[in-house]
């Protein structure tokens, strides 16, 4: 066991793991966190806590993750390299592990010009690959970046990263995930999937590289609420392609949200059949109350109680 | 102000403006009284600075007569001129001078009537503005 987290145990014991996402409040209202944790309790093995997603200022991922631990659920702390240099990140890793946080997802982060602090200075001291490697070095060699300082204590983190099977250049995407595997990543969560064919193509490339044997791949799934949402995402969110067939299904449905949940459940069932996929990462942004239903209908309840 | 006759400097491309001017003269068409013609082999020969200097040294209005966009004998000359006039117009706006004081017109060799008309209209436009701030 690298960190002994619930998520790590779920994978180790051969379960099809389930994670979801929790967006911290745009302030310090702990009630928001409590509400979301309560929706997700019992439905997931761990929950991602986002880090100033889309560069909009929210309660820090480390603080929110610590609250999640206190509330009795396991967080997956997201850390972006956009806002912090290596001093701050290593310092936060000391703190996070001291606060009982045992999973991390290492990301570069959305560019700050997307958010509400467009005049800030971009940090990007490291990129996601280098961050993964840094956390691994802290954990396995007990060294700070630069190799000069020994760390007091154990920095036991289960290390995650992201992958986008739908970005360009397509031929390079699986190679980049392999790069993250070589850097020390333990699990990967993908961008949300609508184009199942492309995802399967990417998984084949992953298997050909042998990455699925080193790393647990979790398929990213986002339920659609309406045809409008589908069209908006297809047009505005880079890295997401939505096949016309899905948009049509959403448009024809009497109740968009119901159809969206239905499609989501079908997708989960489909990815379970793909060799190398060891879990799902369900991102229901501001729709966390649906996670329980989705997980139940997909036949993934009850979540295992792991020792 | 009613006695004010605007002084107009007209840069004329020898491939379009000059022949049009000659036609206007031979037809004895009415044109503003205070005109200075500056012939150039191609409107692209005009430097932005020359447009500004004309205004700086007291012209109430500066116009350029250039060939139609696809008709430049020297291929891109009139396009370059268009960019320069655009730049000069922005400078003029930035310093608070009236934008009517600089203009560019495209015409062909036989546009004598249009030539005279455009100049008369420009004088009309400039009269109420009064003398240039450069005087």
């Amino acid at each position, binding site marked *: 066991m690298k960190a002994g987290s619930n998520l790590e145990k779920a994978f180790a014991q051969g379960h099809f793991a389930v994670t979801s996402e929790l967006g911290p409040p745009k302030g310090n209202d702990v009630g928001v966190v409590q509400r979301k944790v309560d929706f997700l309790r019992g439905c997931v093995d761990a929950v991602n806590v986002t880090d100033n997603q889309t560069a909009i200022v929210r309660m820090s991922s480390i603080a929110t993750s610590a609250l999640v631990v206190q509330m009795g659920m396991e967080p997956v702390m997201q850390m972006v390299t956009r806002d912090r240099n290596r001093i701050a990140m290593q310092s936060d890793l000391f703190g996070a592990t001291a606060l009982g946080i045992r999973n991390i997802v290492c990301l*570069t982060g959305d560019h700050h010009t997307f958010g509400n602090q467009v005049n800030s200075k971009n940090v*990007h*001291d490291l*990129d996601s690959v280098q961050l993964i*490697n840094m956390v691994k070095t802290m954990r396995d060699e007990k060294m700070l970046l630069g190799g000069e300082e020994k760390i007091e204590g154990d920095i036991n983190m289960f290390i995650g990263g992201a992958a986008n099977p739908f*970005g360009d250049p397509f031929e390079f995407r699986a190679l980049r995930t392999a790069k993250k595997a070589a850097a020390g990543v333990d699990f990967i969560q993908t961008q949300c999937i609508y184009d199942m064919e492309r995802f399967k193509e990417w998984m084949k490339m992953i298997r050909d590289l042998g990455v699925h044997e080193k790393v647990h791949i979790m398929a990213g799934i986002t339920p659609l609420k309406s045809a409008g949402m589908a069209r908006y995402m297809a047009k505005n969110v*880079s890295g997401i392609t939505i096949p016309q067939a899905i948009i049509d299904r959403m448009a024809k449905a009497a109740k968009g949200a119901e159809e969206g949940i239905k499609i989501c459940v079908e997708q989960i069932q489909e990815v379970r059949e793909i060799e190398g996929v060891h879990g799902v990462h369900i991102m229901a942004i501001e729709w966390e109350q649906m996670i329980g239903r989705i997980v139940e209908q997909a036949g993934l309840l009850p979540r295992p109680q792991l020792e | 102000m009613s006695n004010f006759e605007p002084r107009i400097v007209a840069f004329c491309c020898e491939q379009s403006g000059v022949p049009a001017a000659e036609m206007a003269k031979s037809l004895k068409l009415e044109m503003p009284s205070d005109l200075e013609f500056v012939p150039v082999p191609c409107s692209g020969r005009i430097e932005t600075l020359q447009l500004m200097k004309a205004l700086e040294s007291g012209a109430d209005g500066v116009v350029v007569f250039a060939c139609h966009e696809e008709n430049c004998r020297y291929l891109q000359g009139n396009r370059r001129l268009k960019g320069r006039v655009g730049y000069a117009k922005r400078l003029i706006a930035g310093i608070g001078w009236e934008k009517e004081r600089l203009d560019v017109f495209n015409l062909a060799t036989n546009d004598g009537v249009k030539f005279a008309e455009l100049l008369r209209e420009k004088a009309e436009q400039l009269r109420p503005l009064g003398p240039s*701030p450069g005087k």
Partner: protein
Amino acid sequence: MIKAEQKSIEKLLEYLAPYGKIMLAGCGACVTVCQAGGEKDVALLASALRMARQKTGQPLEILEVTPARQCEPEFALELADPIGKVEAVLSVSCGVGVQTLARHFPATMIFPGVNTKFLGETVAHGVWEERCQACGDCLLEKTAGICPIARCAKQLLNGPCGGSSQGKCEIKQETDCAWQLIYDRSKSLGRLHRLTEMIPAKRWGVQSRDSGPRRIVREDLKV
């Protein structure tokens, strides 16, 4: 070369409001190439400034001077004599020139007439693009001659990020994704295997620009 853009004429007039006689100093090097501060640009700007002040009834006398470069003592000192005759200087050279003049002429206010933007390439007539950020530790050999520090908005050394789509950056549609370019060129050079090796964290300290203002000394050249 260094690429710069003139500040707005309104801003320049604001700087020059208290003065009646100034020097407008251009530069024959970088700012000439990007048409912001060369001899022609100086003449044009001077004309506009004078015209602006004609309108407000406070004439401005402008001494127009364009030395070959402003960033070297030899050329800066050419201005020593005329500078004594003016109240202030508006320099349309890059930030280096402005500071060189400021250092050599401590008694005269030197105003910056341009915003120094970046080190760049002339892509087409009238189009300049950022190519280098003078990080001080060039890694172009690793990235097939395309710089991710200057051309990737996130300065990734192991890109692309998830936002690269159809060869374009998600931040600005017209911007090429630097990592797509690096990938394409690595492929055509037969060096794709290099991209599977992780480029380690950049040393931003002494090797790069985050250790304070930098200096190069060639002892062999000092007399």
